[in-house]
């Protein structure tokens, strides 16, 4: 089995990034204007990268499938972004953010990358404030912070419940400045359908204009993929409807290894599923767990009474409720990391205590927070002997100020008022920690092809802590890639423009066109969604929150069978030369049908419980952690990077052994 070179620089961890930057090759500013870079995806990672590369002087071509970069799904992130600023004086530091992230990721991320992430995190906040991102302020005019799951400090910066939106709009405004200067050529409503390799290097892409259907060739000296995650492999997830794996999967098929595909985050606080017609799941920010208490009834009688509508949750007294997170994890309580909270919710629901009709919901209750805030406000405003109603009114106003948009969103979807009755929540597929394998330079195993943000694998290990996805996207795009790519491009200053009338472009374009023609000509009988839902069903049932060897083996066979049926019987209406959303979906689902099988294969190989992935054969059998997930460091402290060999089942495993020099590997305890 081959090993992978991570190219992590030598030396003490706190000096690695600085030393690295001091010694890499630079491109003379005058030469940068002779170099083209393609950026695929314009969310937080791609957008910030495009803006920064253009500002440095490179010619950037940026591609987005949406009609504007501002609509990338980074926009939906709610809670916040972490940074080791220690503004609160509660003991935060670069090291502590690094430590929390490595521990939170269940010791499956690369130490050097995570340290660098923690190191540049503080710069991100400075950068975004300078761009005019309206972060929350306290009354002294300084930045406000809150706390997120898995940590014991307040390091999360936020803009109401719309932090992702505001950070994305910040990156988008930086892009707009470069578009206006002519340094970014923006291709909206374009989808990358293949990468073009010339002499072993990534030198361009084939893209489809989604309005006209035209297939276009674009060349560059390097290609950066920042196309987000693949959670839609489950059909139901919190991803946007168009979020897809196509760009990442295409580079995988051309030589980029795909790492840890089975690492998926199941987010604990989503609105539960309500019927078979459902198109996606809606996340409620984890920040709600700062003030919300999570519970189910203690007694089965009450569960039944609630499900049948004979009792309301507010009818149950404190001692009739099981605040199971506070009971099981007294140190972190409701703020345990996402994987722990998700599993605990599933455990209670599997035991029969779920509180909605399908038995797949627990309560997230704000009553105590409303009362606590109300009393505090009464004191601040010198109201003596406030009535219960007054306290509630004052408390609700505070809760509204903090989470108003989330409460409104919940009410619109569920038709219940969460100020008056507890929210119902259940875990859902959210973020994928796996992705394209990259070295310390963020370069994939294809020279000149880079991968950033959620699309790569490097920083979050097996589980992502809250408020760290935004941090990674912007760190990669603003502060890491713009340096590392220069080291590679320094060799290209004499290359000149890459021609597109070559056999490599011909071949890639032909492949893309053949596939599109197949879809529009296939006389099948079933819709694309039919296959996508079928795939999602297998993924959730057999490769979801808990998995076992038998189920995963079955999943691999079942996905293969669905894939074969898809290629025989899919029906795509319309033609190739027009806007055709069904055709777009068909290509994306075809890729998910391959990725899904590799996902199951990876999960089967990883016979340990890790992060959001609970392997039923691997649980703690005794001691205070009995029943908790059991990680196996002796056998699995590595990154699983898969090489494409045709059928997903034939993919070849390459290992990057993970070294933990700064942080001792130990059992994660949040008790």
């Amino acid at each position, binding site marked *: 089995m081959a090993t992978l070179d991570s190219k992590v620089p030598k030396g003490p961890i706190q000096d690695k990034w600085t030393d690295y930057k001091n010694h890499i090759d630079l491109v003379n500013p005058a030469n940068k204007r002779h170099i083209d870079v393609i950026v695929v995806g314009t969310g937080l990672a791609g957008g910030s990268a495009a*803006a920064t590369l253009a*500002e440095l002087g490179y010619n950037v071509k940026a591609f987005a499938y*949406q*009609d*504007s970069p*501002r*609509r990338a*799904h980074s*926009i939906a992130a709610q809670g916040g972004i972490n940074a080791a*600023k220690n*503004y609160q004086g509660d003991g935060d530091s670069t090291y502590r953010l690094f430590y929390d992230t490595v521990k939170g990721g269940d010791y499956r991320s690369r130490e050097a990358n995570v340290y660098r992430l923690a190191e540049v995190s503080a*710069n991100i*906040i*400075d*950068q*975004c*404030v*300078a*761009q*005019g991102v*309206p*972060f*929350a*302020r*306290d009354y*002294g*005019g300084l930045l406000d912070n809150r706390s997120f799951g898995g940590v014991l400090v307040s390091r999360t910066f936020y*803009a*109401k419940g*719309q932090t992702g*939106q*505001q950070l994305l709009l910040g990156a*988008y*405004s*930086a892009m*707009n*400045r470069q*578009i206006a200067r002519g340094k970014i050529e*923006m291709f*909206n409503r374009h989808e990358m359908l293949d990468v073009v390799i010339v002499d072993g290097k990534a030198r361009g892409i084939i893209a489809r204009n989604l309005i006209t259907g035209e297939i276009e060739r674009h060349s560059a000296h390097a290609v950066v993929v920042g196309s987000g995650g693949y959670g839609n492999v489950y059909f139901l997830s919190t991803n*946007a*409807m168009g979020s897809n794996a196509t760009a990442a999967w295409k580079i995988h098929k051309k030589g980029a290894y795909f790492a840890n595909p089975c690492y998926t985050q199941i987010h604990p606080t989503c609105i539960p599923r309500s019927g078979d*017609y*459902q*198109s*996606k799941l809606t*996340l409620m920010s984890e920040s709600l767990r700062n003030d919300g208490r999570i519970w189910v009834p203690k007694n089965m009688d009450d569960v039944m009474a609630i499900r049948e509508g004979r009792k309301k949750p507010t009818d149950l007294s404190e001692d009739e409720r099981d605040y199971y997170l506070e009971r099981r994890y007294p140190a972190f309580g409701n703020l345990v990391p996402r994987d722990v909270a998700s599993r605990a919710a599933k455990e209670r629901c599997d035991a029969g205590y779920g509180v909605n009709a399908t038995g797949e919901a627990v309560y997230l209750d704000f009553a105590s927070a409303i009362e606590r805030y109300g009393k505090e406000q009464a004191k601040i405003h010198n109201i003596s002997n406030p009535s219960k109603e007054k306290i509630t009114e004052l408390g609700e106003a505070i809760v509204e100020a903090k989470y108003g948009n989330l409460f409104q*969103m919940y009410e*619109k*979807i569920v*038709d219940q008022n969460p100020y008056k009755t507890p929210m119902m929540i259940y875990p859902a597929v959210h973020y994928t920690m796996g992705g394209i394998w990259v070295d310390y330079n963020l370069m994939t195993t294809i020279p000149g092809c880079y991968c950033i943000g959620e699309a790569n694998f490097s920083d979050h290990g097996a589980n992502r802590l809250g408020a760290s996805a935004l941090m990674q996207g912007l760190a990669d795009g*603003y*502060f890491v890639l713009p340096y590392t790519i220069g080291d590679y491009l320094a060799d290209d200053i004499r290359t000149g423009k890459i021609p597109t009338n070559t056999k490599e472009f011909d071949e890639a374009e032909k492949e893309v066109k053949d596939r599109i023609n197949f879809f529009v000509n296939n006389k099948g009988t079933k*819709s694309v*969604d039919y296959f996508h839902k079928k795939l999602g069903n297998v993924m959730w049932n057999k490769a979801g929150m808990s998995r076992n060897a038998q189920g995963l083996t079955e999943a691999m066979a079942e996905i293969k069978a669905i894939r074969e049926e898809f290629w025989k019987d899919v*029906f795509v*209406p319309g033609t190739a030369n*027009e*806007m055709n959303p*069904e055709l777009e979906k068909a290509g994306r689902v075809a890729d998910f049908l391959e990725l899904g099988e590799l996902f199951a294969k990876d999960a089967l190989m990883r016979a340990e419980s890790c992060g959001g992935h609970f392997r039923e054969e691997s649980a703690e059998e005794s001691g205070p952690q009995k029943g908790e997930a059991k990680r196996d460091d002796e056998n699995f402290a590595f990154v699983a990077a898969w090489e494409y060999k045709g059928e997903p089942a034939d993919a070849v495993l390459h290992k990057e052994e993970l070294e933990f020099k700064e942080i001792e590997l130990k059992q994660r305890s949040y008790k």
Partner: protein
Amino acid sequence: MNLTLKIWRQKDSNAKGQMVDYKVADISEHMSFLEMMDVLNEQLVNSGEEPIAFDHDCREGICGTCSMFINGEPHGPDRGITTCQLHMRSFKDGDTITIEPFRAAAFPVIKDLVVDRTSFERIQQAGGYISVNTSGNTQDANAIPISKHDADEAMDAAACIGCGACVATCKNSSAMLFVGAKVSQYALLPQGQVEAADRVRNMVDQMDLEGFGNCTNTGACEIECPKGISLENIARMNRELMKANI
């Protein structure tokens, strides 16, 4: 519930469009409006027809992509939401629902219900940013204190999702709520002051160039805005423009 849908079909930007009637059955009141459209599209695909093209993505009310005109209102009858947040409980069994694309000269139809809103992009490219390098060498964020009140107001303006409902509902197809929101966000913050005059002039010039009309204080935009962006932002934009031109 069973519904009759009257939907605008248009093959591409050059084709002539028309309203076409469709029937859907067994719609649950818990479905979102777009899930109801999914049901219709599945039905169309299964009978070998082309589904209806409509813009949508996050389905959480934040990306600003979905853009339908439903029974004469952008994003439908409910206040403060996008089409993806509209649920079928807002309709009754047997209803007839009219669904059209956003209509404005500056938003040409691309196909069916999909319109081209890149005019908004060009307005932002004309100045909707602060000219700061993304170098990582900016000053410490707390060195720029901002009063909580101003930060909150800037945030309220910045909450605009760029969906275009304000334009679609305005009898003048004015984009002043959208542009006002962008101008306000930067006008309320100390960071963007140096170039404030150029910013507002350039953005307003581009807005006019794109063919958007002017504001006549009807206020429909504020009522239909899914994010509650207030008319105050238009007033602030006008004040900023006056200040810039003095």
